[in-house]
């Protein structure tokens, strides 16, 4: 039996087990405010609530109290340009997972302000340098009227 083809389950047979699960899970910041012990996930369509609970408990060692999930459509997008054909993102399952009341999860800030400011500062410096270099080049022969700036004396 190959690893991705499972026999049909007959009542009384031993339980089917997955050795190499290929389900992915995304932890997502929810658009609506949730209680601190509730987390939102995006998972593949084929995953059931039972699968989600097992996945989190066995692989991530997280205790799960309750799982609810809905099917969501992928976004429709019209491409820019003359043709403007429509593309669709993949469908997914939105899972709302409830942890025990004692636990709380806060979504981390993945772009801290300090780093953002630093990168912005660098970008500004670069722009200034470029502008200065251009000005130096254009004003090269300003004292010698009638001579183009690419000409060096």
């Amino acid at each position: 039996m190959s690893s991705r083809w499972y026999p049909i389950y007959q009542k009384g047979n031993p339980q089917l087990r997955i050795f190499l699960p290929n389900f992915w899970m995304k932890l997502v910041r929810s658009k609506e405010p949730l209680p601190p012990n509730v987390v939102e996930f995006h998972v593949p369509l084929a995953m059931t609530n039972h699968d989600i609970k097992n996945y989190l408990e066995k692989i991530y060692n997280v205790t799960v109290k309750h799982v609810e999930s809905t099917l969501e459509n992928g976004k429709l997008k019209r491409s820019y340009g003359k043709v403007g054909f429509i593309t669709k993102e993949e469908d997914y399952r939105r899972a709302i997972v409830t942890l025990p009341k004692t636990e709380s999860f806060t979504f981390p800030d993945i772009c801290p302000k300090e780093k953002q400011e630093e990168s912005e500062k660098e970008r500004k410096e670069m722009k200034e340098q470029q502008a200065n270099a251009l000005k130096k080049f254009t004003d090269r022969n300003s004292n010698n009227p009638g001579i183009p700036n690419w000409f060096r004396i």
Partner: protein
Amino acid sequence: MLTVSLCHNLAKMSLPSSLSLCQRHIQMLRKHPIQKAIHTSSKLLDLNEFFDSPKNFGAEQVRVGRSWRKEELRVKSSSDLHKLWYVLLKEQNMLKTMEHECKEKFIVFPNPERIDKVQESMENLEDVIRERNVAYFQLETTHTGERPAELIDNAFGLKEVYTKSEYDVPKELNKEWQKNNPVIDNRTLAVKKFLVLLKEKLLKKEYAKMKNEEKEVAQIFATYKDVDVEAVQEKYPDVDVEEVRQSDKARGNWAP
């Protein structure tokens, strides 16, 4: 850290010359000290495992290695592969989460090829497991344990790979299945006509391709005076280059 310090202490000690082998060892260790003799598994961070380490937050570039190759995975034991699969799965989940969050926040996701690398190594791992599975099944039960498939003629009379699957009831007895999957006769006149037309179309396509190549070869001889004929023949194996060279089309604008 413990092992490293021990090595250095050993190297500092002066030893009698009779232990030349040991000294050589110490010299080797001096050159290449053991950096990491003890290895521990990663910390369990629960839901924070879905995120990258905080030092990579807001980074413009995250440097990582290459993906796992098949020949490297073939050496590993099955239990090692099983462990590695979960490491890769967690890494993939982390990367997908970070990519999604970056998209939401309008930031550039650093090094998106990391996802491809993880997926490639996962594919390789699965292939290696599959190889082992097939070998095991052929030893135990003469046939590969792969999903059975068959080459069939479909409704249009074309060859198609039909992958079989298991059913509770055999299809001879399953009335409902028979109703949903009626047998389509593909030996009718319409199908025969279609196949003739399809064959004609494919032949025409092939002929056009051949003629196009001939034209290209003639163009080459017409534009360049001294051309290596063998090299042209190598590039266009289906064309009789010598014949095309002597034709009228291949004549250039110079005296022969």
